[in-house]
């Protein structure tokens, strides 16, 4: 039975539950919006990394460099789309 639950996965699961609880702090405690947003950003990115590295094994194949590049490129385009749109349509709008 034990061999069905590798340590890496169990730890990853524990870690992701922990991160969820930490993120919950923003609604349970009184804090500034910037602080709360910072916590959410850090926990969400950490969660994504846990999934990508521990569960999806992005680093295990022969193409790991290309895969990291692909994911980083898509994140670049995604972030540019989000921030650029907010910049053009809201923050920088007269």
């Amino acid at each position, binding site marked *: 039975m034990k061999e069905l639950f590798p340590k890496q996965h169990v730890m990853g699961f524990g870690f992701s539950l922990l991160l969820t609880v930490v993120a919950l702090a923003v609604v349970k405690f009184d804090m500034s919006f910037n602080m709360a947003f910072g916590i959410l950003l850090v926990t969400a990115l950490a969660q994504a990394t846990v999934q990508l590295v521990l569960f999806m094994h992005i680093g295990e194949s022969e*193409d790991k460099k*290309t895969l990291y590049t692909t994911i980083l*490129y*898509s994140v*670049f*385009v995604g972030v*540019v*789309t989000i921030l*650029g*749109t907010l*910049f*053009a*349509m809201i923050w*920088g*709008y*007269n």
Partner: protein
Amino acid sequence: MSMEEVFHPMQEPMILAAAISIVVGAVVIVAGLTYFKKWGYFYKNWLSTVDHKKIGIMYIAVALLMLFRGGIDALLMRAQTAVPDNGLLDAQHYNEIFTTHGLLMILFMAMPFVIGLMNVVIPLQIGARDVAFPRLNAVSFWLFAAGCGLLNLSFIIGGSPDAGWTAYFPLAGTEFSPTVGNNYYSLALQLSGIGTLMTGVNFIATIIKMRAPGMTLMKMPMFTWSILITNIIIVFAFPVLTVALALMMLDRQFGTQFFAMQNGGMDMLWANLFWVWGHPEVYIVILPAFGIFSEIIATFARKNLYGYKSMVMSMVVISLLSFLVWAHHFYTMGHGVMVNSVFSITTMAIAVPTGVKIFNWLLTMRHGKIQFTTPMLYALGFIPIFTIGGVTGVMLAMASADYQYHNTMFLVAHFHYVLIPGTVFGVLAGYHYWWPKMFGFRLNEKLGKAGFWFIAVCFNVTFFPLFILGLDGYARRMYTYSESTGYGPLNMLSFIGGIGLAVGFALIVYNIYYSWKHMPRNEKADVWDGRTLEWATHSPVPEYNFAVVPTVTRLDEYWFAKKEGRDITAGKIEKIHMPNNTGTPFWMSGFFFLAAFFAVFNLWIPAIISMIGVFGFMIHRSFEKDHGRYISVEEVMATEKSLRGDK
């Protein structure tokens, strides 16, 4: 919607004539296939093929057809505006044809032409036997064809989209565009867009994972590089279009408020999303042309490409910058100085890597022994004309000056000066260059050159006057103007140029017929004395591409091997694994087409039934056991012998 409304467009004599000609054409094809008993051949060899070369040829055939469909739109526009107060077309018809002209030329002519060429050439150029996912490739093509068919159908049934190819809200919303035209827009583009996205995934995997042994990234031919970068842009830009089109459909057909004028909607958000995809799209159609010109200039200048590394770097930089400039399409929307300044700077920055490429091409030709073949003429014509397009682009990039040029004919002239010498010259150059590889005979050079000169000269006659008209304040998309504006003479000149362009394109098509009749067959494999691997295998190319996969040690391996008298395709022949043909992609896309067609008219029950058909084919595919087949050594030897023996 009543039947009368559905067939409303047919009341226009010109559309009725077009509709009749489509029906007659379809009947002739069906009757012909039946009479000559070619249905089996047609289905087995084309409709169900997974061979990248045949899929490429089908893409190019559709692209040429759409070039004519879009070209007729263009001629009608020029004819309508040739004289003041012209009554040839009414405003509605004019709106429809400038919309479909843009859509067809960008999405159903430039894109498939580029994708067709990459299908034919890329696996050959990297020494592969097929693409990474041959069946997915067929799905891509048939989804594209379904989208293309749907958009063309709009012309006859229900009315074409009429809010411009950019379909800005609120004009494209149901309030101002109550016909089904823009439903066609969202659904037809969605189908072909999904097909294109799959092509992107397929070719990235092909180029990254299937190169011939020894061909590292920095030993890849420049065309392969340009296609790799193009597909990276496709994969990361097309999802934005997918979302934008889905939101458009939701707004128009499900009453959501994304781009609405009330309830918090934001009409310009559509323009924003459209151009987040739309600007990278410009580079999707232009970068492959850069790759084609690089191959052709190196081949016919008989020199290696100057500045290989800087060429690669400039394309990588262009691919990143292409995602950072989109807001320059709507400087006049009313956002602040900061936004316009930032996007002005990123836009002007793109001119730098593009300039690097122009200089590299010029330096490649320096001291070269230039052969003036048809493809080379297109490459030579491209450089000066494209530079005019580029320089006017920098003018438009300056936000404050753009307030003067915005939505005038100056803009129209600019993007035609970029897209025609860039994309159209590029794909035509590639088409003449690789034609012998596809079919085993050449296109007639005299006709090819005559076509080039007609196009190059008449292009300038058509579009240069538009710069002047634009600076004089002639707004785009006006169906007519009064005589007192003084726009008449230059518009007439432009119309005359348009006729010349039509003659040029007609010559290109006549050349297919002429060369098919008269040009010698069994052309040798390496017709142009080329540099890259596609010239190492027979023309036309056997199904398995290479009997023995060549090994590569440096850039232009084939060229150096020829000099040294080595045969890089020599070696021990082994049995070759190939995928089986399958009709699934064709039928699945057929159901997709039906689903989209019913959805256009809000007929949800038949649409859902058709989607169940789509999912049925997916499940069938998942459970299917098909491991492909082997071509035996004897069979390969026999094919090789007959192909060699003929030479």
